Every structure is written in C-alpha cells, then in structure tokens.
C-alpha cells in the first residue's frame, strides 16, 4: 500500500501524504482556504474559527478542512454557495466585535482578516450583526510588545506558541462566551506574570492584537 493518496481540489489533481489534513494540503498547493485557528502540528484541531469550510463530494454537509484527513479519490470544492455563506457568517461575527481602525493597527496590510476579506471578496464592515465596541485596556507592560485585546480574534495561536514552543504557560483562555479573552493567571499584566517575554506569541499572532512597540 502506498503512503500517498490522490485527491482533487477545485478540479486540480493533487498528490498528498496519507494522514495529512485537507487544509494544509490545499495551502501547500496554492489553493487558499481561509483559516485562523488551525495549527499544523496540533493533533486535535480546535476548529473554532469556522472559516475553513469546504465541500466534499458524497458528504452532505460542509466540513472544516483543518480536521479532515485526506482520503484516496476525495473530490473537494473550496467554494460553493453553502460554504461561502458559512464563511461569510463566521467572518462577520468575528469582525462584529473587532477593533476596525485598521489604519492605526500595526498589522495593517499583513492582517489575516484583511487577507480573508480580499480572497473571498468580503467587506470589513458588516451590518448584519450588532457591533460591540470593546473597551479593553491595552497591556503595554512588557518591554518590547503590547497586547490589545480589542483586536484579538481568539484564534489561540499565541497560546499554542506559549505552551508548545516557548514551554512557558503564562497565558490561556479565560471566561466564557462573549467575555472570553486571552489572559494571564488572575488577569495580571504580562510583565507581572510568569511570561518570559520571548516574543513567540507576538510572532504567532495573525492579527494586530500582540504587536511590537517598535
């Protein structure tokens, strides 16, 4: 038995390693699928951003491509009316409480949200959901970086970097639902926590929430 499989994504025939996740196979082959929370090394992805939906022939509902293993003969469509609607909704919900002052944001033009909007023809303004203006305080206690939670998309990339790469464990998710934030133990400023200021979380942040002070 060979350890590669042949799959079709958007009519392009692709050879992929068995056991690989659909999302990463597509990305490697220059087929863009929106994603925020996906981490390649993670065995059980959270699939919490709800952006990487695709349709697979023979599967009745769209699936998150970050959780789906490639299978021989799989026929995948990255765009369809159903997929586009799901992605649009997830995206609009994400930006409904997002600080959209892009011109003031250090991630302007390299932001994952802007990329998704551009690739999928979505607008960075939405009217469908009530917008929530967050009045979180900016934590600028670390020497080289700061954390503005009003720009955070709760993707968890920084937490992964903190735990799995830096092996520190200073930050984690706190609270539930609309109050959910990334924070330290007892919500202490980063400089007063066990954070080593290794900057790996800043590198991991796909938006402008964790940023260099310059």
């Amino acid at each position, binding site marked *: 038995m060979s350890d590669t499989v042949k799959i079709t994504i958007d009519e392009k025939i692709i050879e992929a390693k068995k056991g690989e996740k659909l999302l990463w196979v597509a990305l490697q082959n220059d087929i863009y699928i929106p994603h925020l929370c996906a981490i390649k090394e993670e065995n059980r992805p959270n699939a919490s951003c709800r952006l990487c939906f695709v349709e697979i022939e023979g599967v009745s509902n769209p699936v998150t491509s970050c959780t789906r293993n490639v299978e021989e003969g799989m026929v995948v469509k990255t765009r369809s009316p159903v997929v586009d609607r799901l992605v649009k909704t997830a995206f609009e919900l994400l930006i409904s409480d997002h600080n959209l002052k892009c011109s003031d944001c250090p991630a302007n033009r390299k932001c994952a949200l802007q990329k998704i909007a551009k690739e999928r023809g979505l607008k960075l303004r939405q009217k469908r959901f009530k917008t929530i203006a967050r009045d979180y305080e900016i934590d600028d206690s670390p020497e080289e970086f700061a954390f503005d939670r009003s720009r955070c998309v709760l993707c968890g990339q920084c937490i992964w970097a903190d*735990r799995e790469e830096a092996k*520190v*464990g*200073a*930050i*984690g*998710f*706190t*609270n*539930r639902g609309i109050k959910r934030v990334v*924070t*330290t*133990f*007892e919500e202490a400023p980063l400089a007063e926590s*066990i954070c080593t200021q290794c900057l790996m979380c800043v590198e991991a942040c796909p938006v402008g929430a964790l940023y260099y002070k310059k």
Partner: protein
Amino acid sequence: MQLLEGEKEKILACVDEVLGSSSKKQEDLIPILQKVQAKLGYLPGLAMEKIAQGVAVPAADVYALATFYNQFRLNPPGKHQVKVCLGTACYMVGGDITLESFERRMEIKEGETSPDRLYSLERVACVGCCTMAPVVVVDEEVEGKVTPTRVDGIMLALQEENRKNENEKMSGQEAGEAE
C-alpha cells in the same frame, strides 16, 4: 481580595489535604476545584496556584477552568449574600436595573465581594417565583418586586443589622474585660 489573618495557612492545609487524596491527574482538576471550594467557600488565587503546581499544569489553565464554569467562585462569600434573579421574567421587568442598584450601593460589581467581606453580589437564573419579579434573594430570604427604592431599604436593613452585631460584639468584649 486581601486574605484574612490565618487564612493563608487554612488554604494551604486545605489544598494539601485535597491533593493528598487525589491522583493529581489533569482530569481530576474539576473535582479538586470542587472539593477545595466546598471547604473554603471559594477559590482563592493562592489555592489555584498550589493546585496547578500539584497537578503540574500552568496556573493559567486552572484559572481558565475556574472562570469557565459558573459553579466556581473566585471571591469569598460575603456575610450577607445577595442574589439578583435575571431569569426571563425578572429580566423583562428590570432585574438588570435592580442589579445595577445593588452594584452602586455595595460599590462592587456582580460576582464580587466587598473588601470588608460584608456583602457579596451574584446573579442567578430563576428562583422559581416569577410572579414576584424582579426577585432578589437576600441571604435566605426571598424578596419580591424589588425596585431601586426597595434596594435602598434592603441595604439599610443590612447596615442596621451589621451595626447591631458590631455593638453586641463591642459590649460583649467590654463585659469580658470588666470581669
């Protein structure tokens, strides 16, 4: 929240005892937190740190759990516990205004305890007497149709009770000294 005299030792002893009778695996975290809270009445930061060390997970993870579940409280129960109902009926007739009135009068937010530990304020979902909405449970007493004016009345009664207790304690001490 400032720890009281001798509270630190109590917390450490309690955590030691609970950890001692557990297998200290990650999946035991919730039962451990439940047992510690049952003994202390709440989860102090010190306890969460010690539990994190015992189970070998980041303290931020213990904090994440404790803030995720409604069953855990991070502040000690006050001498007087006020629970404001924000169930559907109470919410519709202005339970949130009642809650705000208490927040203003107690100078704390929902879920917090006053620094002197006299008052703690919580929100609950349905006490089971919706006809009396908006409902407030003060210690064990159910109060119905609580308007902001009634909040003032309730607070006054609680303050009066505190003063009486204080006086009794004082005169008790004086009597003790006189003997």
